[in-house]
C-alpha cells in the first residue's frame, strides 16, 4: 500500500510539472557547459555596475551554511559533546592534530585558523555542487536588457523543442542558461582568490617569523657568497670558487621566486580543474546511461574531499616551509 502511494506521488511530481511548468513560462533547454560564471543580476553602485554571478551568490550560501553550522554547534556547549557539537569537534580536532604534527605546537596555533577555514570552505563548496538542483535550473537571459554573455558555449535547441515552444520563440535558436546556483569551485575567480590569500599569508608569516630582510635575502636574493667573494678580493686573495657559487645562488633565488608565483597558479587550476571537470563528467554520464552517474557521483564526493584536503594541507606545508629558516642559516 505504502509502495503504491510512493509510486503515485513520484508519477505526480514527474508529470505535473509537464503541465504546470509551461503555464509559468518555464522551458527546458539542452545542456550547456560554460567555463565563465553566468551573471544573475547587477548591483548598481553609483555609475559602476557590480555583477553578481551565480558562483558568487553560491559562495554567500556556503558562508551562511558554515556560520549557521558553527552557531548550531556552539549554542549549547557541553563537556560531553552531542549532535552538531560532536561533528564540529571531530573535524576541528582532526585539522588541529594535522597542524600540530606538521608545523609544531607553537606555529599550529597561528596556521590553524587559515588552514581550517580553507578546508571547510572548499569542502562545502565542492560538495554543494553535487546536490540535485545545482546547475540545471536557472534563468535564460536572452532578451535585449540581458543579452547572452560572450564566450559561453551554447548548444542549439533541438527542432522538436523549437516547435514545442511555438512561433513566439522561433527566432531564438539558442538558449543560454544561467543556473541560479553553481559550485564556487567551478569559478576561476574564486580559486585564484583563495590561492592568493593562501600564498600572500604564507609570505607574511614567513617575514614575521624570520624578519623581512632575512626572509628575502635568505630565500630570493641570495648574495651572501658574492659578499664573501668581494671580502676576499679586498684582502687581495680572491676565491673565485665563491664567485661561481654566488652566481649559482643568484640563479637558485630566481628559481625560488618563480616557484612561489607558480604555486598560485597550481593552487588555482588544481581546484578549478578537478571540480569543474567532475561536474562536466556527471553531466555527460547522465546523457550516456541513466545509472552511470551513480558511480561518478560517489567518485566526485571523494574528489571533493581530497581537493579540499590537498588545498589545506599544501597551504599548511608552504607556511611551515616559509617560517623555517634554511639549514645553513641556522648555524650563522
Amino acid at each position: 500500500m505504502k509502495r503504491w502511494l510512493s509510486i503515485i506521488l513520484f508519477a505526480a511530481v514527474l508529470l505535473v510539472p509537464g503541465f504546470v511548468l509551461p503555464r509559468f513560462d518555464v522551458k527546458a533547454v539542452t545542456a550547456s557547459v560554460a567555463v565563465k560564471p553566468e551573471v544573475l543580476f547587477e548591483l548598481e553602485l553609483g555609475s559602476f555596475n557590480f555583477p553578481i554571478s551565480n558562483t558568487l551568490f553560491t559562495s554567500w550560501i556556503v558562508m551562511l551554511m558554515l556560520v549557521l553550522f558553527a552557531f548550531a554547534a556552539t549554542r549549547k556547549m557541553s563537556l560531553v559533546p552531542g549532535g552538531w557539537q560532536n561533528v564540529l569537534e571531530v573535524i576541528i580536532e582532526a585539522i588541529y592534530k594535522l597542524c600540530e604534527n606538521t608545523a609544531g605546537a607553537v606555529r599550529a596555533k597561528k596556521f590553524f585558523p587559515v588552514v581550517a577555514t580553507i578546508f571547510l570552505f572548499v569542502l562545502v563548496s565542492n560538495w554543494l555542487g553535487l546536490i540535485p538542483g545545482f546547475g540545471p535550473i536557472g534563468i535564460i537571459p536572452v532578451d535585449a536588457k540581458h543579452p547572452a554573455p560572450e564566450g559561453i558555449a551554447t548548444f542549439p535547441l533541438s527542432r522538436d523543442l523549437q516547435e514545442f515552444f511555438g512561433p513566439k520563440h522561433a527566432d531564438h535558436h539558442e538558449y543560454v542558461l544561467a543556473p541560479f546556483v553553481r559550485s564556487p569551485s567551478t569559478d576561476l575567480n574564486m580559486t585564484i582568490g583563495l590561492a592568493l590569500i593562501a600564498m600572500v599569508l604564507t609570505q607574511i608569516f614567513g617575514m614575521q617569523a624570520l624578519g623581512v630582510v632575512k626572509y628575502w635575502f635568505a630565500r630570493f636574493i641570495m648574495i651572501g657568497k658574492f659578499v664573501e667573494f668581494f671580502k676576499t678580493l679586498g684582502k687581495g686573495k680572491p676565491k673565485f670558487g665563491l664567485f661561481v657559487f654566488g652566481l649559482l645562488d643568484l640563479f637558485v633565488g630566481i628559481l625560488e621566486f618563480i616557484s612561489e608565483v607558480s604555486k598560485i597558479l597550481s593552487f588555482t587550476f588544481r581546484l578549478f580543474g578537478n571540480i569543474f571537470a567532475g561536474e562536466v563528467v556527471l553531466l555527460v554520464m547522465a546523457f550516456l546511461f541513466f545509472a552511470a552517474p551513480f558511480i561518478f557521483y560517489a567518485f566526485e564526493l571523494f574528489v571533493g574531499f581530497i581537493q579540499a584536503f590537498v588545498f589545506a594541507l599544501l597551504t599548511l606545508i608552504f607556511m611551515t616551509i616559509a617560517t623555517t629558516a634554511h639549514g645553513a642559516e641556522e648555524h650563522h
Partner: protein
Amino acid sequence: MGLALVFRLSALTLGATFVPLLIGIWIDRAFGTAPFGALILIVLGILTGTVATYRTVQDAYRQIAARADKDRQAREDSRGGNL
C-alpha cells in the same frame, strides 16, 4: 520498502525543488521582483529537499536496522528451540 524509498526520495527531491521555484516565479510575476523571488526560494527549496532526503534516509535506515535486529532475535530464538 526499497522501491518505495527510491520513489519517495525522487519525489522529495523533485518536489522540493520545483514547488518553491513555481512559487518564486509567481511572486516575481505578481510583484515584479525578478529574479530574486525565484532565486531565494529555489535555494530554500534545494536545502529543504536535501535535509528532508537526509531525514528520510535516516528513518529508513533505522527501520531496516530494527527489522534486522528482530530477524536475528527470531533466528536465535528458533535455534534455541531446536536445541
